[in-house]
């Protein structure tokens, strides 16, 4: 079971959160061409190593935020708010 630091509420156990997959995706807008649209809908980065991902603190403050986590070890390198750059991860 992971323990994740919510940038607002502090460290909490994983069941308080919901996973949101790859972070920093850009909504391509409804004008996207079919390939770009399929990309956005169905394709996510899946690195073995540090991964920037989104979580939401559903059982707490309900805020979305970002986490950098190593997918090979589950080690969490930090979390940061939506309006912060990844370098601010703590």
């Amino acid at each position: 079971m992971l323990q994740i630091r919510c940038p607002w509420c502090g460290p909490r156990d994983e069941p308080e959160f919901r996973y949101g997959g790859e972070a920093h995706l850009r909504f391509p807008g409804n004008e996207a061409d079919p390939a770009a649209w399929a990309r956005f809908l169905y394709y996510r980065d899946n690195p073995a190593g540090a991964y920037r991902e989104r979580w939401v603190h559903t059982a707490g403050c309900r805020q979305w935020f970002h986490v950098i986590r190593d997918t090979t070890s589950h080690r969490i390198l930090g979390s940061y708010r939506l309006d912060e750059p990844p370098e601010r991860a703590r």
Partner: protein
Amino acid sequence: MRRLRPGTATDPAKPLSFRWNGTAFDALAGDTLASGLLANGVRVVGSSVSFGRPRGVMSAGLEEAHAFAQIGEGGASEPLMRATTVDLHHGLVARGLSTKGTLVQGDDPARFEKRHGHCDVLVVGGGPAGLAAAWAASAGGARVILVETTARWGGALGRDLELIDGAPALAWVDRITRDLAARPEVTALRRTTAAVSLDQNGVVLVERLPETTPPDRIRPIRRLWQVRARAVVVATGALERGVVFQDNDRPGVMLASAVRSYWHLHGIAPATVVLFTTNDDGYRTAFDLVEAGVLVRVLDARESIGPVGEQARARGIEVLSNAVVAGTRADQAGLLAAARFQAGRRQGEWPCEVLAVAGGYQPLLDLPAQRPDQSHRIVGAAAGQWSLAECLLDGLDAGVAAAEAVGFGSPGPTRPVVGPDWDRSPGTTLWQVPAPDGDETRSFVDLHRDVTVAGLDRALGAGVRSVEHLKRYTLAGTGIEQGKSAKAAAGAIASDRLGSEKPLGVSTGRPPTEPIAFALLAGRARGDLFEPVRTTPAHPAHVAAGAVFENVGQWKRPRYFPRPGETMAEAVAREARAVRTGVAIMDASTLGKIEVQGADAAEFLDRLYLNRLSSLKVGRARYAAMCRLDGTVFDDGVVMRLAPDRFFVTTSTGHAASVFEWMEEWRQTEWPDLEVWTTSTTEQWATYAVAGPQARTVVQSVAPTCDLSREGFPFLGVRPATIAGIAGLLARVSFSGELAFEVMVQSRHGLAVWNALLEAGTPLGMARYGLEALSLLRAEKGYLIVGQDTDADTSPIDAGLGWMISDKDFLGRRSLEMATHRRSDRKQLVGFLPSDPAIVLPEGAQFVADPTQPKPMTMIGHVTTSHPSPTLGRSFGLALVRGGRDRIGHIVHAPLEDRTVAVEIVDPVFYDKAGARRDG
């Protein structure tokens, strides 16, 4: 073996008795089942799984691979407990097992609980290293949890006679544990095993609480802790290894450290012992037992026995060097009778009751192995420190470092003086003594799974080169103790036999480090506490009215309200008729409700819903639906505008949480600039639908001041109103097609308002209606239920909601523009009428165009809703059908198990197509 005196762990003042295989035995408080059996001379505990060979106790701890017992009786009976880790209590009932357990039907009164714990430093293992670590870590005030799996502190110090600061080591243990007990921020738990290592320094502990036979119904017998620590120190020590030789599984063959443990802790000793050792540490057993008057002889595998061996000789112990046990001889019962040895060219046989084997030590790392990349501090014997002095210093240093790392100072602990240190030379590594006659089918590597050296050979011969295949081919290491002692031996012996330069290593270790009863994993979450039951404010009234409930997610919702003697079909027909011809009321409080506020609320909803909601006027409601990004139907509901910047949105019961989360996700991540906020108000409101031609009369009588006239309060109007004296909201929405009012009041008044409405309706014969009648009524109007009449492929266009789509942008629009959504053979929601109006098709029935085709048939659709309709006087339903709208007026077929039913595809609106009835 016999008890010659009380040991340091047993209390002669507290005798107890227990039953083993039906016979009563006496023992002392502090005994384990294993020591209790040994003290009573029980040598055979069970039999081996494959070969049925007799097996006895071989260890004194968690590595036990022989002595398995079924503990307790009836429903409280627990299979496959290791006799070495069961603490005896008075009245305990146990019987011996091979490696298969038994499940016993019956009530289990025992209770199991869970608990969360938090600390700065968690120390696993209460031996010298762990005690020192906990002591040092807590000195500066850090919160420390220290756990020890056995019933006593001190670890190896219970079996090894050592001096610390000039006094017996156990005095040091007492002093340290007293210090720890006096520190308020220290939690020291015995009988507690660290079982699972979680990410981010979480550890699951299993605590054994005092038990009685039979268990009482109040006091839990076990507790599962989930601990979050800021630092973890692992001081789990080392396990003594055995040596594999022919017939090494006889009852009487034991680990040397275990023999010593039973003597010191429980006062139990055999009459004669042969010690087979590869190292100096084994001699401790010889020396201690000789003092107890036991006849001890030593076989030392090393060429040169060194000073300790000389010391043994000086004390009159017979010692052979360069000597190995080549096999054992058994008596007629299969019990150990003698050790056969080979010493250089000399062969011989020494009779003995116990053959104590000292094969060196193996760090016990089953906890950290579960998460190899955790930053646990491993100390003491677990880290390969063999001398007590090093173990103590290692523990102290780790404790200080751990406390400092989490921000606590330490007063610089005084370093205990150990001595005189046990003189030792490194042992020799010896995993196996080849069978003299070459027959390795009785040389056991995994005693529990009956895996022999011959078995390993077979696997290697088959081409197996990986230790993981070796495990799966032979099953070595897959038993209850998960190969704590066998895994390393299997890997090492196999490497040896392959002559491979790269050692095979050991197979993967996994959680837990000790078996955990399922009941403990569930904890309190059983029976009524398994999962919440959510009920609405009017629930007590539904219960009183005899409602039959249906689980909808966690909610209980009335399915129908049978009168005495009524079947479900009769009740549903009556309820539906009441809506169509009179008036009826239903509890819709479980609908999801979300309030959307802010200057940009309208824009926000426009982006989410298919329809344009910014054009909705204050005081008006609109039926609306939303898509997922892939263009399939997500949810539908009613959107009401309470003020220019305030909307009240309903969702289906099942999607209340997901729609709310969906809104929040887009609001926060994509549209952070919109001035809009969402709040879930599902439980703020109780919602009741009063439906039927007489609805106005009923509602008017509880809301006398409100203009409910057709003109004054038109369809899809919303307004604040005082209902039964309570301020609330009224809306004219209808899911049944009849005149209907939705009454919303704060849920704290829900029950009172429900009762008031019922009372008001009684003179008109108002009925209650449930989900079944609702499903029927709305289907007659062709209104769909998302998830029932749609599935993961259904787009709003397929569902007949295409009319909602406005020319603005909304989530999912891009997908709907894709070619696949314009195909004419998509499954579309249509109505159907069975050719025989008495036949009600089962929901889920499939349609085919040609019922005579062979299987697999080409299916063109399926029934999503099907009912007999008292209003239509016939059966009817809704279906998703390929190219369904083009098939209206055509006949298709539903091949059922026993017959095939022809049905006509029709428009999905069956009742009041003109919509004349909704205004009453």
